[in-house]
């Protein structure tokens, strides 16, 4: 009977939100694979926080709350933040983690300053800070889902076009550079794709949790395969799965926010993958250890 109650919940609005979350999970799962493999899992966290001043400036300049304009502002700020991180790492001895932390927190702080400025002008039509931080999946409209679909689709197509180059960048950057690939340009391209995925996700899951949407599906997918192609595909599927199941679960009871539920669903997928994945998984590993122990005992007992 539980199934039936879920089905009756499946009204139109919910379907829109679920489709949006699924698209978002697909895009961020696929692109997040690269971030995880390059050990830049937390770049998403930095970009999503760094986007705040961009949103505020876009609003201050245009006075409009049109999603596309705010998204553009967010993308530009997130992108600038990433460039700053890259140049700090390249030009100073400050390591990646510190550069990330500085850009993340100070850009966000600057955004907060701008936000209080907006608030003070008494403009009722202000960009909600809560929405930015936690997202409001429930407010996703058909046109938002369309935007996610189109921009996310473009990002995925670009990823497929540069498949070979990005693969090389991820696994052997030095080799890529030595055979003449413009690694810095590719780095910026990959980051730009991540920026697109993150900015699209801000409205649905918010800045704080967006990084999980990039990391969790990719980490889960990594446990099942050693091939990039399969990993990206699986991550996209896991992302979509987390998006849909999170949306449905949060709709079954009142006052369960969608974004955090999606993140918890993705985390559950990671937990299951780490436990059960063949070859790499913990349970598999335990079985192999026992078999090895038994074999060793048998071998040694012969002598």
């Amino acid at each position, binding site marked *: 009977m539980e199934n039936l109650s879920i089905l009756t919940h499946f009204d139109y609005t919910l379907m829109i939100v679920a489709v949006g979350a699924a698209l978002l999970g697909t895009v961020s799962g696929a692109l997040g694979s690269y971030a995880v493999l390059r050990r830049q899992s937390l770049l998403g966290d930095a970009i999503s926080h760094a986007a705040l001043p961009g949103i505020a400036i876009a609003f201050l300049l245009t006075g409009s709350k049109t999603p596309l304009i705010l998204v553009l502002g967010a993308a530009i700020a997130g992108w600038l933040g990433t460039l700053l991180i890259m140049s700090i790492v390249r030009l100073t001895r400050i390591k990646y983690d510190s550069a990330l932390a500085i850009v*993340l927190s100070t850009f966000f702080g600057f955004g*907060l300053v701008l936000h209080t400025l907006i608030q003070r002008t008494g403009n009722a039509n202000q960009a909600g800070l809560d929405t930015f931080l936690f997202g409001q999946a429930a407010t996703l409209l058909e046109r938002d889902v369309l935007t996610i679909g189109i921009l996310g689709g473009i990002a995925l197509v670009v990823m497929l076009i540069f498949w070979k180059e990005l693969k090389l960048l991820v696994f052997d950057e030095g080799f890529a550079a030595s055979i003449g690939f413009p690694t810095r340009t590719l780095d910026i391209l990959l980051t730009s794709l991540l920026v697109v995925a993150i900015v699209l996700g801000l409205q649905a899951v918010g800045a704080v949790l967006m990084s999980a949407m990039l990391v969790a599906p990719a980490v889960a997918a990594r446990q099942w395969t050693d091939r990039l192609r399969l990993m990206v595909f699986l991550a996209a599927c896991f992302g979509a799965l987390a998006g849909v199941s999170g949306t449905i679960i949060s709709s079954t009871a009142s006052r369960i926010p969608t974004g955090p539920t999606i993140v918890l669903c993705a985390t559950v997928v990671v937990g299951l993958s*780490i436990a059960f994945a063949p070859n790499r998984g913990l349970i598999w590993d335990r079985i192999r250890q026992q078999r090895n122990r038994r074999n060793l005992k048998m071998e040694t007992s012969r002598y």
Partner: protein
Amino acid sequence: MLQGHLDILSIAIVTAAACALPGVFLVLRRMTLMSDAISHAILPGIVIAFFLTGNLSSPLLILAAAGTGVLTVVFVELLQRTKLVKEDAAIGLTFPALFSIGVILISRFAGNVHLDMDVVLLGELAYAPLNRLKIFGSDLGPVPLYVMGTILVLNLIFVVVFYKELKLVTFDASLAAALGFSPTLIHYGLMTLVSVTTVGAFDAVGSILVVALIAGPPATAYLMTDRLSRMIILSAIIGCVNAVSGYWIAFLFDVSIAGAIATMTLIIFVLVFLVVPNRGLIAIARRHARQKWEFAQTMLVIHLFNHEGLPEAETESAIADLHEHLSWDPGFTNQVVKYALSNRCVSRKETQLILTAHGRTIAQQALVQ
């Protein structure tokens, strides 16, 4: 009015200094993002303790939150130890999950209690002094000042007492282990301090901006010095400068204090990044420019030296044709000749360029090298 300024300023300064001390070691040990993770992951701890006590300023809250912070570190390490997940991904998995639990708990059960998400995440320094410590009716000052003051003293004691151990573990963990110092113990000690500091500071500046206070000043100081002791002192000073300047900007423009402090952290970091001697961006650019001219000058004197005293010397050292012999751009060649003339490596003899004694030495040295 003045009292209000003083209260907020003193809280800001004490918080900045308290965050900078453990921050130095996080920056050096490449674990800065643990502070980001801890500052988010303490949320469920705060929420649960809040449900139990019903009081946002109860000491139990700080303990529970700090416990959750340490738990985060344990989770991250456990995930890493499976060897299935790298450190960055382990952090990126752990804190959003814990944070999500916190958010769900709040929206599910705290609908009618006062626990504002914004306050946890963003903090509001302007309200901090409203919470006064009163004993027998006499006002002893704002509570957050005492909380952060205590944490500052704790951090100071930890850093001073374990200075040698921290230094060793930070710069050579395997040597430390070989000598019998436990890197794990020091690590968890440090992480406990980071948790406690984060929890104490979130009240004043919010959990995201704690990261600015922990990472910003030590990274700025790292650009300025090679000595650990100097870096610690500089970090504390820079933290205070950020706090004070941020506060005044916030006051002048009537904006978020914590946000303004974070903005000042970025501005001062970028300034130092640009102008610091030897390692700054400007110094690097100038060094590159100087090296370019010196290299060209060396090429020029070597060229002159090679043909000196030989029959073709007259054509090879004609100023007007030099660019062809060296295959340089004519304009560039002129500038190099001017540079070399000003350094007295060469001198002009009618249409010829001849080496001075100094120039000859340079050429000889360069060839020997």
